[in-house]
């Protein structure tokens, strides 16, 4: 009797779980999985606009063959994007972490002031950031060159020199996104056990030992999540490049997202653009899966060794 009763209850409970999850799950599938499938489908077609309607013709793997054999600009973008991601994200992580440490150690008044100043760049809309930095980095009348001119240097063509343009874009991205990393790192630091940090102060001689052997290992979960997040976002960089250099000069600041945008919207090559998107999407997913597997394997190995 009682067993029967619990069985009914369990079944009712299961039904409740399924029905309450259904709306969110449906929405997720429609909004996320469907566009990806649609994109995948599109990548096998050649699409032309004729008489106000799209004409689909199945071309099989042609788009992919073209991408891997004849394309130059996209692959320049991939190369730039990898440089961009590695350099910008490394700088953001180091700077953000250091700033968070500085704020954590500062007194309460200093903390409020520093947090306010550090957070300013995320509040500024991207369009304003692009315009602002173009004005600063402009060749003729830019603030940067004016200041350099005062000490007898320059002028430097920050955005027009192919050797400098990518570095300039990276600089703006670091300026833009470091506060975000800082915020996550500060939240992570605040959540560490205060007594453990005090124990570390007593057990170590010098701040570097505390950071290296206690703070960093304890912050690892936060660091990994932030890193992952920033790497993904840096492969999606668009607004800064669009506003500062539009990918130029030449392909100096071409990035993946910009190539896709141009192919899709400027050149109306929907099928080819879809193929680029699919390659990008699956590469990033693969990298994330491999990175996660690597981290988990390492954790498992350390556990086994212990």
């Amino acid at each position, binding site marked *: 009797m009682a067993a029967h009763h619990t069985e009914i209850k369990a079944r009712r409970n299961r039904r409740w779980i399924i029905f309450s999850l259904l709306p969110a799950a449906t929405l997720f599938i429609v909004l996320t999985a469907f566009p990806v499938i649609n994109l995948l489908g599109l990548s096998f077609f050649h699409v032309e606009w004729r008489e106000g309607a799209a004409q689909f013709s199945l071309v099989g793997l042609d788009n992919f063959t073209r991408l891997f054999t004849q394309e130059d600009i996209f692959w320049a973008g991939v190369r730039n994007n990898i440089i961009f991601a590695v350099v910008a994200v490394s700088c953001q992580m180091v700077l953000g972490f250091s700033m968070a440490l500085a704020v954590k150690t500062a007194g309460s008044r200093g903390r409020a002031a520093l947090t306010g100043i550090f957070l300013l760049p995320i509040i500024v809309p991207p369009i304003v950031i692009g315009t602002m930095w173009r004005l600063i980095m402009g060749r003729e009348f830019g603030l940067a060159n004016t200041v350099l001119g005062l000490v007898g240097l320059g002028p430097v063509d920050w955005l027009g020199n192919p050797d400098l343009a990518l570095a300039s874009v990276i600089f703006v991205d670091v300026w833009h996104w470091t506060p975000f990393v800082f915020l996550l790192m500060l939240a992570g630091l605040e959540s560490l*056990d205060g*007594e*453990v940090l*005090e*124990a*570390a*102060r*007593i*057990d*170590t*001689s*010098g701040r570097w*030992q505390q950071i290296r*052997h*206690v703070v960093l*290992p*304890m912050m*690892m979960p936060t660091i990994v999540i932030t890193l992952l997040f920033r790497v993904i976002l840096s492969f999606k960089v668009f607004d800064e490049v669009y506003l500062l250099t539009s990918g130029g000069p030449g392909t100096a600041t071409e990035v993946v997202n910009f190539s896709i945008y141009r192919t899709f919207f400027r050149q109306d090559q929907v099928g080819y653009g879809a193929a680029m998107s699919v390659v990008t999407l699956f590469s990033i997913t693969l990298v994330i899966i491999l990175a996660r597997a690597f981290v988990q394997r390492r954790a498992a190995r350390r556990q086994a060794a*212990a």
Partner: protein
Amino acid sequence: MSNVSLKGLKKSYGSVEVIPSLDLDIRSGEFVVLVGPSGSGKSTLLRMIAGLEAVNDGTVSVDGEDVTERDPGDRDMAMVFQSYALYPHMTVAENMTFALRMRGTGEATISKRLADALRMLSLEGLDQRKPGQLSGGQRQRVAMGRAIVRQPRVFLFDEPLSNLDAKLRARTRIELRGLHDKLGATSIFVTHDQIEAMTMADRIVLLDKGHIQQVGSPREIYEKPRNRFVASFIGSPEINLLEGDIRDEGGTIFFEQFALRGAWPDIQPGPYTLGVRPENFDISRAPLEGGVSLEVGAIEYTGSDTFVFGSSPLGELTVKIDADGQDMADGLRAGETLHVRPAAGAWHLFDASGSRVPEN
């Protein structure tokens, strides 16, 4: 072994004075317990000695050497925290040897000291576990081990037993005191628990609002409390503090109806407070000469003793009936009347300012 000397130590947070000015000398090899209610400044004082809290004024010296301005890591002190504060990402062995490794101590010394400490604390076989895989008692031992392997000049303990259950706490008290004696170390131990203070200390430092109320052996503190605060803080159940007048009747000193024969022959009459501990009463069912009646309110039987809480003409009283009086305690019910009288010589008298009136 090292002595610790605090001179004119001051601490305030903004306008809030936590420790107005404090002097204390801790002898080499001594086990000193800082005890007091919450807000007494005992933890702040310990943290100032450790260097975790900045000092506004005054000095902390170890073996005559001023360490006030030194970093916590450069004072050669080890601390055991209330939450144990083990490094969650390190194994037991890594936790215990961390400070030595950071100081570049030789591999041979480290492994020898680790093995000694593991044996001393019965932690053998657990050295490769992470703190998350240990019980509360084991974590507490690891925290002690982390302090022991350093062989520091001074051990600091910040309520290290308060997260243990009652049984384990009682056992750990004895073990910790045993370790102290074996290592011959200087230990400073903070607690709010008077039982820990009484059972472990060579000397108790009783603090209230940042002021030292009394420094002395557990016996001195219990038997000769210097003021009302000390008398009521130490002892469980609390001492009875009775308000009344002292008068001189033909050479005999009376506190209300109690005759205080032999003590304080030259005392000034006037208002005083008489302190009598629950165990220092003569108790009888029949009226006692110079005693008061006690209407029984509540009875607490603890096994060895019985505590009776009731009201007398002089106010609420707590009296203890010990094992010898269990016959009397057996039939006792709330609402009945007993007669009690402070036992001769077990009186504590405090003047209007709360200070102890010394016996002649």
